[in-house]
């Protein structure tokens, strides 16, 4: 039986992909950012912690989906996905391989649970998905886990509510538990934390709010579940809304979780970088 063992959250700032791809990880600007991922890169190589499959919750940034197609929740069920050309050529990272049997199982289970999923069989994946892979796994020749891409619309409003994201997480947990094969499954939530990359207010960072959000992932997740969109927008910048995707990860874990690791750093590009590793108590 598949086991949902841990949840990881992380920002997916494109610059952090560039830094790794261009070998800048030791530069002053980047060093403290990447250092916060050392713990996780070590932890995740341990036999108990190495996932067979990661359900990677992210958003597409006008790469695979344009204005003709806006799925609220899309799940990738193809065998593999190529890194997208976002305007400066695709990232030089491995092809993303899926566990298609498992992905289709999850897709089916979610639809039976009354989530109105869109199944996607042909798409490229952008920095939202590949940057967290690089942060957690470094620069291997092949990604060491299979990846199920789960894309959430956080670009065109209304985006899904925090509550709906949480409920999707709970349904993901049921899908994992009902899969007969013995797999170690992690759910990753990506995006965030504070950032606004548009308009005169760009550059907004709210460290206090971000830290409380990180605290409450373990202390008071039900508060986070109920946060309205407007609070993310006012308090953490227009792109801080990406944090609703963390609630999918959090909803997939149980009532009580332990924080194994936390990292918070300002800035990476325009963004506050946040990263936690959580496990069920």
């Amino acid at each position, binding site marked *: 039986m598949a086991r949902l063992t841990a949840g990881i959250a992380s920002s997916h700032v494109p610059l952090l992909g560039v830094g790794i791809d261009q070998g800048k990880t030791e530069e002053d600007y980047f060093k403290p950012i990447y250092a916060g991922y050392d713990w996780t890169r070590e932890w995740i190589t341990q036999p108990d912690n190495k996932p067979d499959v990661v359900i990677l919750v992210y958003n597409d940034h*006008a790469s695979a989906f344009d204005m003709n197609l806006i799925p609220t929740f899309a799940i990738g069920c193809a065998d593999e996905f190529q890194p997208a050309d976002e*305007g400066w050529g695709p990232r030089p990272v491995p092809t993303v391989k899926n566990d298609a049997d498992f992905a289709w199982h999850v897709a089916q289970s979610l639809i039976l649970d009354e989530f109105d999923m869109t199944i996607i069989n042909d798409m490229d994946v952008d920095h939202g998905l590949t940057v967290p892979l690089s942060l957690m796994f470094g620069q291997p020749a092949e990604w060491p886990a299979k990846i199920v891409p789960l894309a959430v619309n956080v*670009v*065109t409003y209304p985006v899904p509510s925090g509550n709906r994201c949480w409920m999707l997480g709970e349904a993901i947990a049921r899908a994992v538990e009902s899969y007969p094969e013995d797999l170690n499954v992690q759910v990753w939530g990506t995006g965030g934390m504070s950032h606004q990359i*548009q308009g005169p207010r*760009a*550059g907004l*960072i709210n460290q206090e709010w971000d830290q409380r959000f990180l605290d409450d992932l373990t202390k008071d997740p039900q508060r986070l579940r109920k946060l309205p969109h*407007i609070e993310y927008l006012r308090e953490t910048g227009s792109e801080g809304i990406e944090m609703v995707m963390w609630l999918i990860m959090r909803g997939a874990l149980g009532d009580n979780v332990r924080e194994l690791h936390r990292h918070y750093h300002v*800035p990476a590009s325009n963004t506050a970088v946040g990263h936690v590793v959580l496990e069920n108590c």
Partner: protein
Amino acid sequence: MADRVSEYLAAFDDIPGTRVYTTKRARQGYWLNQFCMSLMKAENRKRWLADERAYLQDWRMTDEQKDAVLARDYNRLLDLGGNIYFLAKLFSTDGLSFVQAVSTMTGMSEDEYKAMMMAGGRSPQGVRSIKEGN
């Protein structure tokens, strides 16, 4: 029944210096954003860089949108329905990073903007709500 949709959207207009990408903007900016998407293909980038005005003739954008594209006036482009992730294809084609492009919208120089970020970013104090002035 109250119009929840309008209530939901109205709050977004109360955030200083911010254009939330509502469906109203998505509709207004449809062709502008689709034009930006076209720059994801290397061959289109080449044609675009060779003759920007000629390239724009193929796109059903308003003159205002075309002028703002040519001027790289990103705040104006947001007002005309552009979305930053689509506009990113435009400034990436120019070789600009997110920080460089974003700084042009803030009224700061690139160096000032970078310095603000290094010092912890823009404080939310005073820029949460127009109405509340907080």
